[in-house]
Each structure stands twice: as structure tokens, then as C-alpha cells.
């Protein structure tokens, strides 16, 4: 009888604490940098919820949102975010944080771009020297940004040329490729800093040592959070809205700004929500 009671109590406990699930589709940079791991447990505890993180390229994260396979997306490709909203897939877009891109390359710098202030000059020099350039080539936020930078420089790189390598892989793989082959590549600063120990042949050639020293505004990389339109069905809209509100709140913004300071001597992301700017 005692055992039975215990069992019932146990089962009842299981039933009542079954947490709600929030499906978050996001980019590899937020997951690989360790940021989500650092902040999400607090949300899970305070909202009695479990967050399932799907870390993919921005292209797939947006596709997951469009298909209703995610409740909320956290991505960084402004033009595509706007298109996502315009098509009615999301209920609103909220600024979350900013980091920046840098161009990294081999220390011997075959294209001679070290210290150039703008990517426009640097990419023009890379193309002129036909120095190897590794492109993500995967429709990710970083890839989208890279293509915009080439367009701004008035160059259309041919993926079948000998110097422009379109990999179709994640940021980490692309950095390892550049490290092995002596290639230049565009990366977000956070991923580069977190992997720098394994990339002995690469240094930052354009973008400066910190975000404050980055002289090219085109390299800023804003992240937005978008709750998916509940009309798609099976969307946990309430929790998604709460998540967006939580992520942009001053408390969490402060935590985002602290993340990475200890390990890398500088934050990997800078808080930039409306609430943070108006605090």
C-alpha cells in the first residue's frame, strides 16, 4: 500500500511538472558561442518551460518558421527578416543584440589588406590579387552579409573560379578550411574568438581588435527575435511572446552584454533591445 501511494505521488508529480515546450530556431552563431546555454536555463526556470534549440543556418531557421516548425526564431539577416514579416509569417520583429563581422586571413596577408578601414577596399584587393577566399555559401546570415559586401564593392565573385571557394558549410568548418588553406573569410567576431585557439594561422585583418575599433559600419550584425504567426497552427504563441519579451528585457540584456567578458576579455554580443536603449 505504501509503495502504491508512493508510486501515485510520483506519477502525479510527473504529470504536474511536465514543462511547456518552446521551439526556438536560431543560427549556429548564437548556439556555438555558448550564449544560449548561458542564459536559457533562467527562462526555463522562471516560465516552467523547456526550450528546444534548433541551431541551423539563417536560411533554414527562416524556413522552419515559415513551415510552422518553430515557435520563435532568432536570426541575423535583416533583409530576409523583413521579407519574412512582410509575408505574414511572424507577428513582429524585435531588436535583441548586435555583434560584428571581421575579415580574417593568413598572417602573411597575400592580398595586403591588413588594417584597411573598409571591407570595400579589402575585398577589391582580395579579388585583384586572386587570393583564396572561403565563402560560407550556405545562405546563412553571414553568407548573406558577405554577398552584400561584394555587391557594395562592385564585384561578383564566380564560384567556379580558382580563388573563390563556396563551401556550403557552417562557420566553424569554414574557419578550419581557411586555417588549413591560407584563405581569407568573413566571420562573426564571436565565433572567431571562441575558436581562435584552434586557428593558429588566422588573424583579424579587417575589423580591428574589438567592436569599438571596427571602422566599417557595414560590418555591424544586428540580431532580431520574431515570434511565428500562430495562424500556422500548433504554435505556442503565448510562450513565444513571453520569450521575446524576456530576451529584450533589461535584466537579460545585461547578461548578454556580460557573456564572454571573462573568457575572451570582451563581450561576444552587445545588448541592443529597445528596452535597453531606453533604460
Amino acid at each position, binding site marked *: 500500500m505504501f509503495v502504491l501511494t508512493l508510486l501515485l505521488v510520483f506519477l502525479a508529480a510527473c504529470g504536474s511538472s511536465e514543462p511547456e515546450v518552446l521551439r526556438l530556431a536560431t543560427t549556429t552563431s548564437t548556439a556555438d558561442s555558448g550564449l544560449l546555454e548561458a542564459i536559457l536555463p533562467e527562462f526555463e526556470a522562471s516560465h516552467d518551460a523547456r526550450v528546444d534549440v534548433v541551431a541551423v543556418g539563417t536560411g*533554414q531557421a527562416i524556413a522552419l518558421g515559415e513551415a510552422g516548425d518553430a515557435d520563435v526564431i532568432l536570426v541575423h539577416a535583416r533583409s530576409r527578416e523583413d521579407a519574412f514579416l512582410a509575408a505574414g509569417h511572424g507577428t513582429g520583429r524585435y531588436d535583441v543584440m548586435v555583434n560584428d563581422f571581421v575579415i580574417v586571413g593568413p598572417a602573411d596577408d597575400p592580398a595586403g589588406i591588413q588594417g584597411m578601414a573598409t571591407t570595400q577596399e579589402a575585398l577589391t584587393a582580395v579579388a585583384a590579387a586572386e587570393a583564396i577566399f572561403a565563402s560560407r555559401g550556405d545562405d546563412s546570415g553571414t553568407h548573406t552579409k558577405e554577398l552584400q559586401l561584394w555587391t557594395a564593392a562592385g564585384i561578383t565573385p564566380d564560384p567556379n573560379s580558382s580563388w573563390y571557394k*563556396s563551401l*556550403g558549410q557552417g562557420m566553424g*568548418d569554414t574557419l578550419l578550411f581557411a586555417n588549413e588553406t591560407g584563405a581569407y573569410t568573413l566571420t562573426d567576431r564571436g565565433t572567431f574568438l571562441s575558436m581562435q585557439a584552434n586557428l593558429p594561422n588566422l588573424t583579424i585583418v579587417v575589423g580591428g581588435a574589438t567592436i569599438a575599433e571596427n571602422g566599417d559600419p557595414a560590418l555591424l550584425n544586428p540580431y532580431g527575435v520574431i515570434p511565428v504567426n500562430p495562424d500556422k497552427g500548433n504554435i505556442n504563441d503565448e510562450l513565444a511572446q513571453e520569450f521575446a519579451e524576456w530576451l529584450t528585457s533589461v535584466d537579460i540584456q545585461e547578461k548578454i552584454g556580460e557573456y564572454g567578458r571573462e573568457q575572451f576579455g570582451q563581450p561576444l554580443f552587445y545588448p541592443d533591445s529597445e528596452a535597453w536603449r531606453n533604460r
Partner: protein
Amino acid sequence: MHILVQVFQNAVQLLFSFDPELWSIVALTLRVTGFALFFAMLIGIPIGAGLGLMGRIPAAGCLLPLIYTGMGLPPVVVGLCVYLLLSNQGPLGDWGWLFTPSAMILAQTVIALPLVVGLTLTAVRATDPMLHLQLRSLGATRVQLAWTVLRETRLGVVAAIVAAFGSIISEVGAVMLVGGNIQGETRVLTTAIVLETRRGNFALALALGIILLGLAFVTNLVLYGLQRRD
């Protein structure tokens, strides 16, 4: 449900658009898998036949489990080892093979080899020992003996080749690591499928999957024909 139908329709359309890039991916896939299979057969069939014909395999208790484990080698582990071998800091870094089709062929050969050895060995051991005795008494040399037994066990050898082919043409972990999925250079069908899925281009990914299945089917049709031919 209708999304699946739509994706499938797009896939079929893409198949018949005969995009040159698509066909270069198909050609590279066949080249890499073909060479890897060829090398695995060249090395693996003689080893398998040799071991199978031995009355008692030396250190069989250790060697056979080793071969059978090799038959299930995880491709990513093979890829990782080949990557470390060929990397700048690795012992074979000077070859400059990393992120080239040669590296992919090397990795797939390593994956296919234990399959070819193991299944050939099993097939040869299953033949009638009386046949070996008879052939020896007729004065056959070791090579003649092996050749005759292999012909006799054609079914098993073709099964070995089919299994090896199936495992490497559908393999993605190793070729992604050592090839790098470079457009126009090292992108094969499986790595292209991963990429297009990540990009959310499900129709294109499915079209590539259909081509991959088609290739495997045609190849197996040819191999099945070999098996039946007398």
C-alpha cells in the same frame, strides 16, 4: 501533406532541367565512389580470398572481430582520421590532398575496404573444402586456386562489392570533413543534399536524393547482371 506533393513536383521539374552544375556534381560523385570502390576491390578481394583459403587464419580470434568491426566503421571517424593525416600539421600534410577529391577517395577506400575483405572472406570460406582439395590435386597453383574459387563464389563477391558501393555512395560524414563541400570542386550528391536542406531548399535536396537513389539502382542493376551472367 500538399507541401510534400509540391516539393516532389519541384524535384521532378529540377531533374529534367539538366542543370550543368547538377551534372558536374553527379559526375564527381561517380568518380570518387568509383575510384574508391576500385581501390577497395583491388586490395580487398585478394586479401579476403587469401585469408578465406587459409585452413586456419593466423590469430583468427583477434583478426576476424577486427575485420567485422571495420565493416561498421563510422564514416565520420574515418573522415576525422584522414583529416588529421592530411592536415597541414599532419604527417601527410605535404601532399596537399586535404579538400581535394583525392582525400575523398582515400577516405571512402578506407570505409569500403573492410566490407570487401570481410564479405569476400566469408563467401570464400563458405565454399566446399573438397573443391580446394580437388583443385590442389589437379596441380593448381595458389593463384589459380584462388581465381577458380572466386569465380565459383561470384555471388558472394558481387554481394561484397554491392555492400561496399552502397555504403560509400550514401556516405556523407567523411566526404564532408575531408572534401569540404567546395562548389565545383568537391561537392558530391550527399554533401549537396545536406547543404540544400540547411538552406531550406527542400525541393532541390529531394531532387538530389532521387538522383542518388537512381544512381544506386542503376549500378546495382548492372552488378546484378554480372552476377547472373555465366
